[in-house]
């Protein structure tokens, strides 16, 4: 079943077509990687899928509903969450507070003025579960600003998971991590496979080919090839356009 369908999506900045008639299908349950050289328009695509940026034309359908003009908050509530390439957290809040705020977003009204939120066990318990899932249980009380880069990447993921997404958009989750941290995050994504549908943008080819069920190759705002990892590895057009000698 197709969970996310993108049809003929277009976005231009002046004469530069960053997304140029892009179509894409993501099936429920799969981990769909999108690769492409720098400037191919990967982050712009994620921004349009998440609602941060409005496309010029084309459509985005999520679970059978057209969400092309829906705002970010509604998309999140419909089950479409994202992580950011550039870490976007609440620096002054602890790891637990960062995640609990995401849990709060989908559990009841936030127009509550009296009861201390720090004492809400339901929020904290669910937040702790997400933190444990990414391996940050022992960092719960640390302010996000005081965490290492790798820990922040893990926290990004915990916050996205706390939204209980059906589709998770991951914008370079491994960006800037060391080999050990990357290994840990790859294991985590591996564990999430099957539980949640994922669209993964990533430059780390080893990770992409190890994790992805399907890979789409984005070049100059268009999908030039789409298929299983083996298929993509063998595709001559892909090798010419992107992989070069590196994958041979």
């Amino acid at each position, binding site marked *: 079943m197709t969970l996310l369908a993108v049809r003929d999506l277009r976005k231009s900045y002046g004469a530069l077509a960053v997304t140029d008639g892009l179509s894409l299908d993501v099936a429920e349950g799969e981990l769909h990687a999108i690769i492409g050289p720098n400037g191919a328009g990967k982050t712009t695509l994620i921004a349009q899928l998440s609602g941060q940026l409005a496309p010029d034309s084309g459509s985005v359908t999520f679970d059978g509903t057209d969400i092309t003009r829906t*705002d970010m908050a509604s998309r999140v509530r419909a089950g479409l*969450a994202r992580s950011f390439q550039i870490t976007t*957290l609440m620096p002054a809040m602890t790891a637990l507070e960062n995640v609990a705020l995401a849990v*709060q977003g989908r559990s009841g009204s936030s127009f509550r*003025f*009296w009861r201390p*939120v720090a004492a809400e066990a339901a929020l904290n318990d669910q937040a702790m579960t997400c933190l444990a899932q990414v391996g940050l249980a022992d960092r719960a009380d640390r302010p996000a600003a005081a965490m290492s880069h790798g820990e922040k990447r893990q926290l990004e993921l915990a916050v996205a998971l706390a939204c209980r997404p059906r589709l998770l958009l991951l914008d370079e989750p491994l960006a800037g991590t060391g080999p050990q941290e990357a290994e840990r995050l790859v294991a985590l994504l591996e564990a999430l496979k099957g539980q949640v549908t994922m669209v993964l943008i990533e430059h780390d080819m080893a990770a992409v080919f190890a994790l992805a069920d399907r890979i789409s190759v984005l070049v100059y705002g268009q999908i030039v090839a789409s298929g299983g990892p083996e298929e993509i590895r063998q595709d001559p057009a892909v090798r010419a356009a992107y992989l070069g000698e590196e994958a041979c």
Partner: protein
Amino acid sequence: MSAAPKAAIALLILLALVPPAAAAIGDPFLTVIATRMAVFAIAALSLDLILGYGALVSFGHAAYLGLGAYAVAVCARHGITDLFLQMGAAALAAALFAAVSGAVSLRTRGIYFIMITLAFGQMAYFFFVSLSAYGGDDGTALAARSTLFGRAWLENDTAFFYMVLACLALAYGGLDRLVHARFGRVLTGTRESELRMRAIGYRPFRYRLAAYVLSGMICAVAGVLLANQTEYVSPAYMAWTRSGELIVMLLLGGVGTLAGAMAGALVTVGLEELLAGWSEHWRLCFGLILLAVVLWSPAGLTGLLRRLLAGGRR
């Protein structure tokens, strides 16, 4: 209890001790100064809600002080002298003004927000300047202070002071609950990262607007008390320099901590009295003190206190 509520409660107790101390040394003017401190502490607390927790630098907050003050004058002229009714009217007027001005200004960020709130503040200022029925530019004197249950209890400076102190304690207590509740966490989130808030399913505008309206209402209550303290109402209460003074109080005390807002108001009013009695060029001296605090302790006096406490423990 962490250090911040302790500091706030210490300040409240300190203020409560002023009238007996003033009686003991025979200087009733101390109570008047303490009243002024408490009134501005309420105004500073209200501004801290949006500026400190929501990162919304309102440069027109004095408009709400003025709205509250004029609510007293308008109500009194129409025979409504009860303090609580006047506070209700003031809060209602402030809520309307904040809802309209907030709905416009909160669509902008940064310097644009500062300028639009300033513009709305000036609109309110010039409206009351041209209101000749209430003295226009000169303002108007109140016939008497507001009444409580039909009685003129507040004519007594000490009784009035404790009334103001009770309002301050309520404002502090209520805001302390609010910033630690769900709403406060969301507001803090919008300060920390608007994009992240959207990405976890929030629409920041509605929370900002709610905080903006609430903040205006609390500040209007401070305005009601200010008019009663001076027994005079004038557009000068809502001059843009007054809005600046409120921001200075927060900078001095520490932005984003309620205890800091209170401390900042107390110290600013105190220094004003002290330095003004010493030299007519007191603003120069006050400026240097502010500069020193901002340079050496960007987190204001509360930051300084926290550092001293941490240093003592080492």
